[in-house]
Protein backbone atom coordinates (compact mmCIF):
# COMPACT_ATOMS: atom_id res chain seq x y z
CA UNK A 1 0.00 0.00 0.00
CA UNK A 2 1.25 3.46 -0.86
CA UNK A 3 0.84 6.12 1.76
CA UNK A 4 -0.89 9.34 0.76
CA UNK A 5 2.46 11.16 0.88
CA UNK A 6 3.94 8.73 -1.56
CA UNK A 7 1.04 9.19 -3.99
CA UNK A 8 1.55 12.95 -3.89
CA UNK A 9 5.25 12.49 -4.47
CA UNK A 10 4.54 10.27 -7.48
CA UNK A 11 2.22 12.88 -8.92
CA UNK A 12 4.78 15.67 -8.60
CA UNK A 13 7.48 13.34 -9.92
CA UNK A 14 5.37 12.56 -12.98
CA UNK A 15 5.31 16.27 -13.82
CA UNK A 16 9.10 16.53 -13.50
CA UNK A 17 9.68 13.41 -15.61
CA UNK A 18 7.32 14.60 -18.34
CA UNK A 19 9.13 17.92 -18.57
CA UNK A 20 12.70 16.52 -18.51
CA UNK A 21 12.02 13.75 -21.02
CA UNK A 22 9.66 15.91 -23.08
CA UNK A 23 7.02 13.21 -22.95
CA UNK A 24 3.54 14.54 -21.97
CA UNK A 25 1.92 11.10 -21.82
CA UNK A 26 4.50 9.48 -19.52
CA UNK A 27 2.97 7.48 -16.64
CA UNK A 28 5.24 6.45 -13.77
CA UNK A 29 5.05 3.27 -11.73
CA UNK A 30 7.15 1.91 -8.87
CA UNK A 31 9.03 -0.77 -10.81
CA UNK A 32 9.96 1.55 -13.69
CA UNK A 33 13.68 1.76 -14.55
CA UNK A 34 15.80 3.89 -16.88
CA UNK A 35 15.46 1.35 -19.69
CA UNK A 36 11.67 1.85 -19.70
CA UNK A 37 11.86 5.56 -20.53
CA UNK A 38 13.09 6.88 -23.85
CA UNK A 39 16.12 9.21 -23.54
CA UNK A 40 16.72 8.36 -19.87
CA UNK A 41 20.48 8.00 -20.09
CA UNK A 42 23.36 8.98 -17.81
CA UNK A 43 23.36 12.50 -19.31
CA UNK A 44 19.67 13.20 -18.65
CA UNK A 45 19.77 11.40 -15.33
CA UNK A 46 21.54 14.24 -13.54
CA UNK A 47 19.26 16.84 -15.21
CA UNK A 48 16.38 14.86 -13.74
CA UNK A 49 18.01 14.72 -10.30
CA UNK A 50 18.68 18.47 -10.34
CA UNK A 51 15.06 19.17 -11.33
CA UNK A 52 13.79 16.90 -8.53
CA UNK A 53 16.09 18.58 -6.01
CA UNK A 54 14.65 21.97 -7.00
CA UNK A 55 11.04 20.85 -6.98
CA UNK A 56 11.12 19.07 -3.61
CA UNK A 57 13.82 21.32 -2.08
CA UNK A 58 15.97 18.35 -1.07
CA UNK A 59 19.62 17.38 -1.74
CA UNK A 60 20.93 14.01 -2.84
CA UNK A 61 24.41 12.57 -2.48
CA UNK A 62 26.25 10.76 -5.29
CA UNK A 63 26.01 7.58 -3.25
CA UNK A 64 22.22 7.85 -3.03
CA UNK A 65 21.81 8.67 -6.71
CA UNK A 66 24.11 5.84 -7.78
CA UNK A 67 22.34 3.17 -5.81
CA UNK A 68 18.81 4.00 -7.04
CA UNK A 69 17.40 1.36 -9.36
CA UNK A 70 13.69 2.11 -9.78
CA UNK A 71 11.26 5.03 -9.73
CA UNK A 72 9.73 3.50 -6.58
CA UNK A 73 13.08 3.69 -4.79
CA UNK A 74 13.48 7.30 -5.93
CA UNK A 75 10.04 8.20 -4.53
CA UNK A 76 10.90 6.39 -1.30
CA UNK A 77 14.17 8.32 -0.97
CA UNK A 78 12.38 11.65 -1.53
CA UNK A 79 9.82 10.77 1.12
CA UNK A 80 12.60 9.85 3.55
CA UNK A 81 14.28 13.21 2.92
CA UNK A 82 11.04 15.15 3.33
CA UNK A 83 10.25 13.42 6.62
CA UNK A 84 13.77 14.09 7.94
CA UNK A 85 13.53 17.77 7.02
CA UNK A 86 13.34 20.15 9.99
Amino acid at each position, binding site marked *: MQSAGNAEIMETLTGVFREIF*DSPGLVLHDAMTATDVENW*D*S*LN*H*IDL*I*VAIEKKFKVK*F*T*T*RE*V*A*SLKTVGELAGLIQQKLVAKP
Partner: protein
Amino acid sequence: MIFTSFNFLLLLPLVVALYHIVPLRGRSLYLLVVSYAFYWIWSPGAAAVLAAVTSLTFYAGKVVGDPTAERRGRVVFLYAIGLLILYLAIFKIAAATSLGRTVGIALPLGLSYYTFKLMSYIIDIYWGKIQPATNRIDFAVAIAFFPQLTAGPIQRPADFLPQVPPPRTMVWQGLSRMVWGLAKKMLIADNLAPTVNYVYAHIGGSQVGGLHGAALLAGFYLFPLQLYADFSALTDIALGMGMMFGIQGPENFNRPFTASSISDFWSRWHMSLTSWLADYVFTPLRMTTRSLGTLGLVLSLSLNMVAIGIWHGLTWGYLAFGLVNAAYFVADALTARNRVKFFKTRPNLTRLGNWMGWLLTFHLVLLGLVFFRAHTVSDATWLLSHALGGLAHAKADVSHLLAATGAKVLLVGLAGYAALELAERLRPDQWWLSFELTAPTWLRLSLQFVTGAFIAVAWVLLTIRSGNHASPFLYQVF
Protein backbone atom coordinates in the same frame (compact mmCIF):
# COMPACT_ATOMS: atom_id res chain seq x y z
CA MET B 1 48.54 -17.00 -25.02
CA ILE B 2 46.57 -15.60 -27.95
CA PHE B 3 43.01 -16.94 -28.27
CA THR B 4 43.60 -17.87 -31.91
CA SER B 5 46.90 -19.64 -31.22
CA PHE B 6 47.32 -23.32 -31.91
CA ASN B 7 47.98 -24.32 -28.28
CA PHE B 8 44.99 -22.43 -26.98
CA LEU B 9 42.50 -23.84 -29.49
CA LEU B 10 43.85 -27.32 -28.85
CA LEU B 11 43.61 -27.01 -25.07
CA LEU B 12 40.23 -25.34 -24.81
CA PRO B 13 38.02 -28.36 -25.72
CA LEU B 14 39.84 -30.39 -23.06
CA VAL B 15 39.36 -27.69 -20.41
CA VAL B 16 35.64 -27.43 -21.28
CA ALA B 17 35.15 -31.22 -21.29
CA LEU B 18 36.79 -31.62 -17.86
CA TYR B 19 34.64 -28.78 -16.49
CA HIS B 20 31.54 -30.83 -17.16
CA ILE B 21 32.82 -33.69 -15.01
CA VAL B 22 33.61 -31.44 -12.06
CA PRO B 23 30.78 -31.35 -9.47
CA LEU B 24 28.98 -28.03 -9.06
CA ARG B 25 30.66 -27.00 -5.81
CA GLY B 26 34.10 -27.57 -7.34
CA ARG B 27 33.46 -25.49 -10.43
CA SER B 28 34.62 -22.14 -9.02
CA LEU B 29 37.88 -23.66 -7.83
CA TYR B 30 38.37 -25.32 -11.21
CA LEU B 31 37.83 -22.02 -13.02
CA LEU B 32 40.23 -20.31 -10.63
CA VAL B 33 42.99 -22.88 -11.22
CA VAL B 34 42.54 -22.75 -15.01
CA SER B 35 42.45 -18.93 -15.04
CA TYR B 36 45.60 -18.58 -12.96
CA ALA B 37 47.38 -21.29 -14.97
CA PHE B 38 46.53 -19.34 -18.12
CA TYR B 39 47.94 -16.15 -16.60
CA TRP B 40 50.91 -17.95 -14.98
CA ILE B 41 52.07 -19.20 -18.38
CA TRP B 42 52.27 -15.62 -19.57
CA SER B 43 54.03 -14.34 -16.43
CA PRO B 44 54.30 -15.95 -12.97
CA GLY B 45 55.14 -12.57 -11.46
CA ALA B 46 52.06 -10.91 -12.91
CA ALA B 47 49.90 -13.80 -11.62
CA ALA B 48 51.30 -13.39 -8.12
CA VAL B 49 50.64 -9.63 -8.19
CA LEU B 50 47.09 -10.25 -9.44
CA ALA B 51 46.49 -12.67 -6.55
CA ALA B 52 47.81 -10.12 -4.05
CA VAL B 53 45.77 -7.18 -5.33
CA THR B 54 42.66 -9.40 -5.51
CA SER B 55 43.09 -10.54 -1.88
CA LEU B 56 43.62 -6.99 -0.66
CA THR B 57 40.47 -5.81 -2.44
CA PHE B 58 38.50 -8.76 -1.06
CA TYR B 59 39.41 -7.91 2.55
CA ALA B 60 38.99 -4.19 1.97
CA GLY B 61 35.50 -4.94 0.63
CA LYS B 62 34.61 -6.71 3.87
CA VAL B 63 35.57 -3.66 5.94
CA VAL B 64 33.87 -1.18 3.58
CA GLY B 65 30.66 -3.21 3.70
CA ASP B 66 30.62 -3.59 7.49
CA PRO B 67 27.54 -1.64 8.68
CA THR B 68 28.82 -1.52 12.27
CA ALA B 69 31.94 0.49 11.40
CA GLU B 70 30.90 3.14 8.87
CA ARG B 71 33.72 5.58 9.64
CA ARG B 72 36.39 2.91 9.28
CA GLY B 73 34.67 1.69 6.11
CA ARG B 74 34.91 5.15 4.57
CA VAL B 75 38.62 5.43 5.35
CA VAL B 76 39.34 1.95 3.97
CA PHE B 77 37.25 2.75 0.88
CA LEU B 78 39.32 5.87 0.16
CA TYR B 79 42.59 3.99 0.72
CA ALA B 80 41.52 1.04 -1.44
CA ILE B 81 40.40 3.23 -4.36
CA GLY B 82 43.50 5.40 -4.03
CA LEU B 83 45.78 2.37 -4.04
CA LEU B 84 44.05 0.78 -7.03
CA ILE B 85 44.33 4.02 -9.03
CA LEU B 86 47.98 4.34 -7.99
CA TYR B 87 48.63 0.72 -8.95
CA LEU B 88 47.11 1.27 -12.40
CA ALA B 89 48.89 4.61 -12.83
CA ILE B 90 52.36 3.29 -11.89
CA PHE B 91 52.25 0.59 -14.57
CA LYS B 92 50.72 2.91 -17.15
CA ILE B 93 53.36 5.58 -16.49
CA ALA B 94 56.13 2.97 -16.56
CA ALA B 95 54.83 1.68 -19.89
CA ALA B 96 54.56 5.15 -21.39
CA THR B 97 58.01 6.34 -20.34
CA SER B 98 61.50 4.87 -20.35
CA LEU B 99 61.01 4.12 -16.64
CA GLY B 100 59.54 0.71 -17.41
CA ARG B 101 62.57 -0.40 -19.39
CA THR B 102 65.01 0.99 -16.82
CA VAL B 103 63.39 -0.64 -13.81
CA GLY B 104 62.35 -3.71 -15.77
CA ILE B 105 58.58 -3.34 -15.25
CA ALA B 106 56.29 -4.70 -17.96
CA LEU B 107 52.60 -3.81 -18.22
CA PRO B 108 50.73 -6.80 -16.76
CA LEU B 109 48.40 -8.35 -19.34
CA GLY B 110 44.81 -7.25 -18.81
CA LEU B 111 45.76 -4.72 -16.11
CA SER B 112 43.32 -2.05 -17.32
CA TYR B 113 40.48 -4.58 -17.36
CA TYR B 114 40.94 -6.24 -14.00
CA THR B 115 41.69 -3.08 -12.00
CA PHE B 116 38.40 -1.66 -13.32
CA LYS B 117 36.61 -4.80 -12.11
CA LEU B 118 38.23 -4.41 -8.67
CA MET B 119 37.37 -0.70 -8.46
CA SER B 120 33.74 -1.26 -9.41
CA TYR B 121 33.49 -3.89 -6.67
CA ILE B 122 34.75 -1.58 -3.92
CA ILE B 123 32.63 1.36 -5.13
CA ASP B 124 29.47 -0.77 -5.43
CA ILE B 125 29.89 -1.93 -1.84
CA TYR B 126 30.52 1.62 -0.64
CA TRP B 127 27.44 2.85 -2.47
CA GLY B 128 25.38 0.07 -0.92
CA LYS B 129 24.58 -1.51 -4.29
CA ILE B 130 26.02 -4.91 -3.33
CA GLN B 131 27.07 -6.83 -0.23
CA PRO B 132 30.72 -7.93 0.12
CA ALA B 133 31.41 -11.33 -1.47
CA THR B 134 31.32 -14.16 1.04
CA ASN B 135 33.43 -16.63 -0.90
CA ARG B 136 37.00 -15.62 -1.75
CA ILE B 137 37.32 -18.24 -4.50
CA ASP B 138 34.20 -16.96 -6.28
CA PHE B 139 35.53 -13.43 -5.97
CA ALA B 140 38.98 -14.35 -7.31
CA VAL B 141 37.30 -16.04 -10.31
CA ALA B 142 35.20 -12.92 -10.96
CA ILE B 143 38.43 -10.93 -11.31
CA ALA B 144 40.65 -13.49 -13.10
CA PHE B 145 38.09 -15.39 -15.25
CA PHE B 146 40.41 -16.25 -18.14
CA PRO B 147 38.08 -15.59 -21.11
CA GLN B 148 37.79 -11.97 -19.95
CA LEU B 149 41.15 -11.51 -18.25
CA THR B 150 43.24 -10.16 -21.09
CA ALA B 151 40.77 -8.02 -23.00
CA GLY B 152 37.40 -7.82 -21.27
CA PRO B 153 34.53 -7.32 -21.54
CA ILE B 154 34.67 -5.61 -18.15
CA GLN B 155 32.10 -7.69 -16.29
CA ARG B 156 31.57 -6.15 -12.88
CA PRO B 157 31.71 -8.57 -9.91
CA ALA B 158 28.15 -7.38 -9.09
CA ASP B 159 27.05 -9.06 -12.32
CA PHE B 160 29.46 -12.02 -12.24
CA LEU B 161 29.17 -13.21 -8.62
CA PRO B 162 25.47 -14.20 -8.72
CA GLN B 163 26.36 -16.54 -11.62
CA VAL B 164 28.98 -18.65 -9.77
CA PRO B 165 29.13 -21.56 -9.44
CA PRO B 166 27.25 -21.91 -12.73
CA PRO B 167 24.73 -24.76 -12.53
CA ARG B 168 24.34 -25.11 -16.31
CA THR B 169 26.54 -24.40 -19.28
CA MET B 170 25.69 -23.20 -22.81
CA VAL B 171 28.29 -25.09 -24.83
CA TRP B 172 26.42 -25.11 -28.12
CA GLN B 173 25.59 -21.40 -28.03
CA GLY B 174 29.04 -20.50 -26.77
CA LEU B 175 30.77 -22.54 -29.42
CA SER B 176 28.78 -20.89 -32.21
CA ARG B 177 29.55 -17.45 -30.81
CA MET B 178 33.23 -18.32 -30.53
CA VAL B 179 33.51 -19.68 -34.06
CA TRP B 180 31.79 -16.53 -35.31
CA GLY B 181 34.42 -14.47 -33.48
CA LEU B 182 37.33 -16.58 -34.75
CA ALA B 183 36.07 -16.24 -38.32
CA LYS B 184 35.63 -12.47 -37.91
CA LYS B 185 39.19 -12.17 -36.62
CA MET B 186 40.88 -14.39 -39.17
CA LEU B 187 38.81 -13.69 -42.28
CA ILE B 188 38.01 -10.02 -41.83
CA ALA B 189 40.32 -8.26 -39.35
CA ASP B 190 43.51 -10.10 -40.33
CA ASN B 191 42.84 -9.47 -44.03
CA LEU B 192 42.24 -5.74 -43.54
CA ALA B 193 45.30 -5.45 -41.28
CA PRO B 194 48.11 -5.56 -43.91
CA THR B 195 46.73 -2.56 -45.83
CA VAL B 196 46.06 -0.55 -42.66
CA ASN B 197 49.49 -1.37 -41.22
CA TYR B 198 51.17 -0.41 -44.48
CA VAL B 199 49.40 2.95 -44.66
CA TYR B 200 50.17 3.89 -41.08
CA ALA B 201 53.80 2.82 -41.49
CA HIS B 202 54.23 5.05 -44.57
CA ILE B 203 52.91 8.40 -43.44
CA GLY B 204 55.04 11.49 -44.10
CA GLY B 205 55.83 13.25 -47.35
CA SER B 206 59.59 13.15 -47.21
CA GLN B 207 59.76 9.48 -46.30
CA VAL B 208 60.88 6.97 -48.93
CA GLY B 209 57.76 5.25 -50.20
CA GLY B 210 55.59 7.81 -48.39
CA LEU B 211 51.95 7.54 -49.39
CA HIS B 212 49.68 10.26 -50.74
CA GLY B 213 46.03 11.15 -51.24
CA ALA B 214 43.77 8.19 -51.91
CA ALA B 215 46.14 5.69 -50.30
CA LEU B 216 45.94 7.67 -47.05
CA LEU B 217 42.18 7.85 -47.44
CA ALA B 218 42.11 4.05 -47.67
CA GLY B 219 43.84 3.87 -44.29
CA PHE B 220 41.35 6.40 -42.90
CA TYR B 221 38.37 4.26 -43.92
CA LEU B 222 39.84 0.79 -43.37
CA PHE B 223 41.29 1.03 -39.87
CA PRO B 224 37.93 1.53 -38.09
CA LEU B 225 36.52 -1.49 -39.94
CA GLN B 226 39.55 -3.57 -38.95
CA LEU B 227 39.36 -2.36 -35.35
CA TYR B 228 35.67 -3.16 -35.07
CA ALA B 229 36.04 -6.61 -36.65
CA ASP B 230 39.07 -7.36 -34.45
CA PHE B 231 37.75 -6.07 -31.15
CA SER B 232 34.20 -7.36 -31.55
CA ALA B 233 35.69 -10.74 -32.53
CA LEU B 234 37.62 -10.73 -29.29
CA THR B 235 34.40 -9.96 -27.41
CA ASP B 236 32.57 -12.76 -29.28
CA ILE B 237 35.32 -15.21 -28.34
CA ALA B 238 35.35 -14.07 -24.70
CA LEU B 239 31.55 -14.20 -24.39
CA GLY B 240 31.32 -17.52 -26.25
CA MET B 241 34.00 -19.07 -24.07
CA GLY B 242 32.23 -17.73 -20.99
CA MET B 243 28.98 -19.41 -22.08
CA MET B 244 30.79 -22.74 -22.38
CA PHE B 245 31.49 -22.41 -18.64
CA GLY B 246 27.98 -21.13 -17.90
CA ILE B 247 28.85 -17.43 -17.56
CA GLN B 248 26.83 -14.75 -19.40
CA GLY B 249 29.03 -11.71 -19.95
CA PRO B 250 28.06 -8.16 -20.93
CA GLU B 251 27.87 -7.22 -24.62
CA ASN B 252 30.45 -4.73 -25.86
CA PHE B 253 29.02 -3.61 -29.20
CA ASN B 254 25.69 -2.82 -30.76
CA ARG B 255 26.29 -2.05 -34.46
CA PRO B 256 28.40 1.05 -33.67
CA PHE B 257 28.73 2.30 -37.25
CA THR B 258 24.97 2.70 -37.60
CA ALA B 259 24.99 5.43 -34.91
CA SER B 260 23.26 8.68 -35.86
CA SER B 261 24.95 10.89 -33.25
CA ILE B 262 28.13 10.92 -31.16
CA SER B 263 26.31 10.05 -27.94
CA ASP B 264 24.58 7.26 -29.85
CA PHE B 265 27.97 5.97 -31.05
CA TRP B 266 29.40 5.92 -27.53
CA SER B 267 26.40 3.96 -26.29
CA ARG B 268 27.19 1.30 -28.93
CA TRP B 269 31.02 1.11 -28.80
CA HIS B 270 33.05 -0.75 -26.11
CA MET B 271 29.92 -0.63 -23.97
CA SER B 272 31.38 -2.41 -20.93
CA LEU B 273 34.03 0.35 -20.65
CA THR B 274 31.76 3.32 -21.47
CA SER B 275 29.03 2.21 -19.05
CA TRP B 276 31.71 1.72 -16.37
CA LEU B 277 32.95 5.27 -16.88
CA ALA B 278 29.39 6.62 -17.03
CA ASP B 279 28.62 5.10 -13.62
CA TYR B 280 31.90 5.62 -11.77
CA VAL B 281 33.43 8.72 -13.41
CA PHE B 282 30.78 10.76 -15.21
CA THR B 283 27.94 10.46 -12.66
CA PRO B 284 30.05 11.40 -9.59
CA LEU B 285 31.68 14.26 -11.52
CA ARG B 286 28.34 15.51 -12.79
CA MET B 287 26.80 15.29 -9.32
CA THR B 288 29.72 17.26 -7.85
CA THR B 289 29.55 19.94 -10.54
CA ARG B 290 25.77 20.12 -10.90
CA SER B 291 25.55 23.55 -9.29
CA LEU B 292 27.76 24.91 -12.10
CA GLY B 293 25.09 24.24 -14.75
CA THR B 294 26.36 23.96 -18.33
CA LEU B 295 29.98 24.44 -17.28
CA GLY B 296 29.62 21.42 -15.00
CA LEU B 297 28.28 19.36 -17.86
CA VAL B 298 31.13 20.41 -20.18
CA LEU B 299 33.75 19.65 -17.51
CA SER B 300 32.29 16.25 -16.59
CA LEU B 301 31.87 15.16 -20.20
CA SER B 302 35.36 16.28 -21.16
CA LEU B 303 37.05 14.54 -18.24
CA ASN B 304 35.04 11.40 -18.95
CA MET B 305 36.12 11.31 -22.61
CA VAL B 306 39.75 12.04 -21.73
CA ALA B 307 39.56 9.14 -19.25
CA ILE B 308 38.30 6.87 -22.05
CA GLY B 309 41.25 7.98 -24.19
CA ILE B 310 44.05 7.54 -21.66
CA TRP B 311 42.57 4.30 -20.30
CA HIS B 312 44.24 2.83 -23.42
CA GLY B 313 47.63 4.22 -22.41
CA LEU B 314 49.36 7.45 -21.46
CA THR B 315 50.29 8.63 -24.95
CA TRP B 316 49.62 11.91 -26.77
CA GLY B 317 47.67 9.98 -29.41
CA TYR B 318 45.19 8.48 -26.92
CA LEU B 319 44.91 11.86 -25.20
CA ALA B 320 44.14 13.51 -28.56
CA PHE B 321 41.58 10.77 -29.27
CA GLY B 322 39.93 11.55 -25.93
CA LEU B 323 39.99 15.32 -26.48
CA VAL B 324 38.59 15.11 -30.01
CA ASN B 325 35.73 12.95 -28.75
CA ALA B 326 35.21 15.27 -25.78
CA ALA B 327 34.70 18.17 -28.20
CA TYR B 328 32.24 16.09 -30.26
CA PHE B 329 30.32 14.96 -27.20
CA VAL B 330 30.05 18.46 -25.72
CA ALA B 331 28.75 19.82 -29.05
CA ASP B 332 26.28 16.94 -29.22
CA ALA B 333 25.01 17.40 -25.65
CA LEU B 334 24.68 21.19 -25.91
CA THR B 335 22.66 21.05 -29.13
CA ALA B 336 20.59 17.93 -28.39
CA ARG B 337 17.45 19.69 -27.14
CA ASN B 338 17.37 22.19 -29.99
CA ARG B 339 17.92 19.47 -32.56
CA VAL B 340 15.06 17.40 -31.19
CA LYS B 341 12.80 20.48 -31.19
CA PHE B 342 13.82 21.39 -34.74
CA PHE B 343 12.97 17.99 -36.14
CA LYS B 344 9.78 17.68 -34.09
CA THR B 345 8.32 20.69 -35.85
CA ARG B 346 9.57 19.51 -39.27
CA PRO B 347 8.66 15.81 -39.49
CA ASN B 348 9.29 15.72 -43.25
CA LEU B 349 12.97 16.47 -42.60
CA THR B 350 13.44 13.67 -40.02
CA ARG B 351 14.59 11.09 -42.54
CA LEU B 352 17.08 13.43 -44.11
CA GLY B 353 18.24 14.51 -40.65
CA ASN B 354 18.85 10.92 -39.54
CA TRP B 355 20.76 10.18 -42.70
CA MET B 356 22.90 13.31 -42.41
CA GLY B 357 23.43 12.54 -38.73
CA TRP B 358 24.72 9.09 -39.60
CA LEU B 359 27.07 10.37 -42.31
CA LEU B 360 28.49 13.10 -40.10
CA THR B 361 28.84 10.83 -37.04
CA PHE B 362 30.57 8.14 -39.10
CA HIS B 363 33.18 10.58 -40.42
CA LEU B 364 33.73 12.31 -37.10
CA VAL B 365 34.31 8.94 -35.42
CA LEU B 366 36.74 7.91 -38.14
CA LEU B 367 38.61 11.17 -37.79
CA GLY B 368 39.03 10.58 -34.05
CA LEU B 369 40.28 7.04 -34.66
CA VAL B 370 43.16 8.34 -36.81
CA PHE B 371 44.68 9.70 -33.57
CA PHE B 372 44.03 6.34 -31.93
CA ARG B 373 45.91 4.41 -34.62
CA ALA B 374 48.70 6.73 -35.83
CA HIS B 375 52.08 6.32 -34.19
CA THR B 376 52.28 10.01 -33.35
CA VAL B 377 49.92 12.98 -33.29
CA SER B 378 51.90 14.60 -36.11
CA ASP B 379 51.43 11.44 -38.21
CA ALA B 380 47.70 11.72 -37.59
CA THR B 381 47.48 15.37 -38.56
CA TRP B 382 49.67 14.70 -41.61
CA LEU B 383 47.32 11.94 -42.75
CA LEU B 384 44.25 14.10 -42.19
CA SER B 385 45.70 17.12 -43.98
CA HIS B 386 46.96 15.14 -47.00
CA ALA B 387 44.23 12.52 -47.49
CA LEU B 388 42.16 14.78 -49.72
CA GLY B 389 45.10 16.19 -51.67
CA GLY B 390 46.06 15.06 -55.17
CA LEU B 391 42.86 13.15 -55.89
CA ALA B 392 43.78 13.48 -59.58
CA HIS B 393 46.32 10.69 -59.12
CA ALA B 394 44.02 8.61 -56.91
CA LYS B 395 44.30 5.65 -59.25
CA ALA B 396 48.08 5.63 -59.18
CA ASP B 397 48.13 6.05 -55.38
CA VAL B 398 45.77 3.12 -54.85
CA SER B 399 47.67 0.87 -57.28
CA HIS B 400 50.89 1.73 -55.43
CA LEU B 401 49.24 0.69 -52.16
CA LEU B 402 47.70 -2.49 -53.53
CA ALA B 403 50.96 -3.53 -55.17
CA ALA B 404 52.60 -3.34 -51.77
CA THR B 405 49.91 -5.09 -49.71
CA GLY B 406 48.02 -7.40 -52.08
CA ALA B 407 44.64 -6.66 -53.63
CA LYS B 408 43.23 -10.16 -53.03
CA VAL B 409 43.76 -10.06 -49.28
CA LEU B 410 42.06 -6.68 -49.04
CA LEU B 411 39.18 -7.84 -51.21
CA VAL B 412 38.55 -10.87 -48.96
CA GLY B 413 38.63 -8.58 -45.94
CA LEU B 414 36.19 -6.12 -47.47
CA ALA B 415 33.80 -8.82 -48.67
CA GLY B 416 33.94 -10.34 -45.19
CA TYR B 417 33.19 -6.96 -43.65
CA ALA B 418 30.18 -6.47 -45.93
CA ALA B 419 28.94 -9.93 -44.89
CA LEU B 420 29.42 -8.95 -41.24
CA GLU B 421 27.32 -5.78 -41.55
CA LEU B 422 24.65 -7.72 -43.45
CA ALA B 423 24.56 -10.49 -40.84
CA GLU B 424 24.23 -7.93 -38.04
CA ARG B 425 21.33 -6.33 -39.89
CA LEU B 426 19.49 -9.53 -40.75
CA ARG B 427 20.44 -11.51 -37.60
CA PRO B 428 20.28 -15.06 -39.06
CA ASP B 429 21.12 -16.42 -35.59
CA GLN B 430 17.80 -15.13 -34.20
CA TRP B 431 15.94 -16.55 -37.15
CA TRP B 432 17.72 -19.85 -36.50
CA LEU B 433 16.74 -19.83 -32.81
CA SER B 434 13.05 -19.34 -33.55
CA PHE B 435 13.26 -22.00 -36.25
CA GLU B 436 14.83 -24.46 -33.80
CA LEU B 437 11.92 -23.93 -31.41
CA THR B 438 9.26 -24.76 -33.99
CA ALA B 439 10.94 -27.33 -36.28
CA PRO B 440 10.11 -31.06 -35.94
CA THR B 441 12.66 -33.04 -33.93
CA TRP B 442 14.07 -35.08 -36.84
CA LEU B 443 14.76 -31.92 -38.86
CA ARG B 444 16.23 -30.09 -35.88
CA LEU B 445 18.54 -32.96 -34.98
CA SER B 446 19.77 -33.51 -38.52
CA LEU B 447 20.42 -29.78 -38.98
CA GLN B 448 22.23 -29.65 -35.64
CA PHE B 449 24.37 -32.56 -36.79
CA VAL B 450 25.29 -30.80 -40.02
CA THR B 451 26.04 -27.53 -38.18
CA GLY B 452 28.06 -29.43 -35.57
CA ALA B 453 30.12 -31.10 -38.29
CA PHE B 454 30.62 -27.73 -39.95
CA ILE B 455 31.80 -26.15 -36.69
CA ALA B 456 34.14 -29.08 -36.04
CA VAL B 457 35.70 -28.71 -39.50
CA ALA B 458 35.94 -24.93 -39.09
CA TRP B 459 37.58 -25.45 -35.69
CA VAL B 460 40.16 -27.85 -37.10
CA LEU B 461 40.88 -25.52 -40.02
CA LEU B 462 41.21 -22.51 -37.74
CA THR B 463 43.45 -24.46 -35.37
CA ILE B 464 45.75 -25.57 -38.16
CA ARG B 465 45.85 -22.12 -39.69
CA SER B 466 46.58 -20.39 -36.44
CA GLY B 467 49.58 -22.67 -35.99
CA ASN B 468 51.27 -20.82 -38.80
CA HIS B 469 50.49 -17.23 -37.98
CA ALA B 470 48.44 -16.19 -35.02
CA SER B 471 48.26 -12.41 -35.03
CA PRO B 472 47.64 -10.67 -31.73
CA PHE B 473 44.33 -8.91 -31.08
CA LEU B 474 44.44 -5.12 -31.07
CA TYR B 475 42.74 -4.89 -27.69
CA GLN B 476 44.83 -7.50 -25.87
CA VAL B 477 47.47 -4.94 -25.01
CA PHE B 478 45.69 -2.78 -22.46
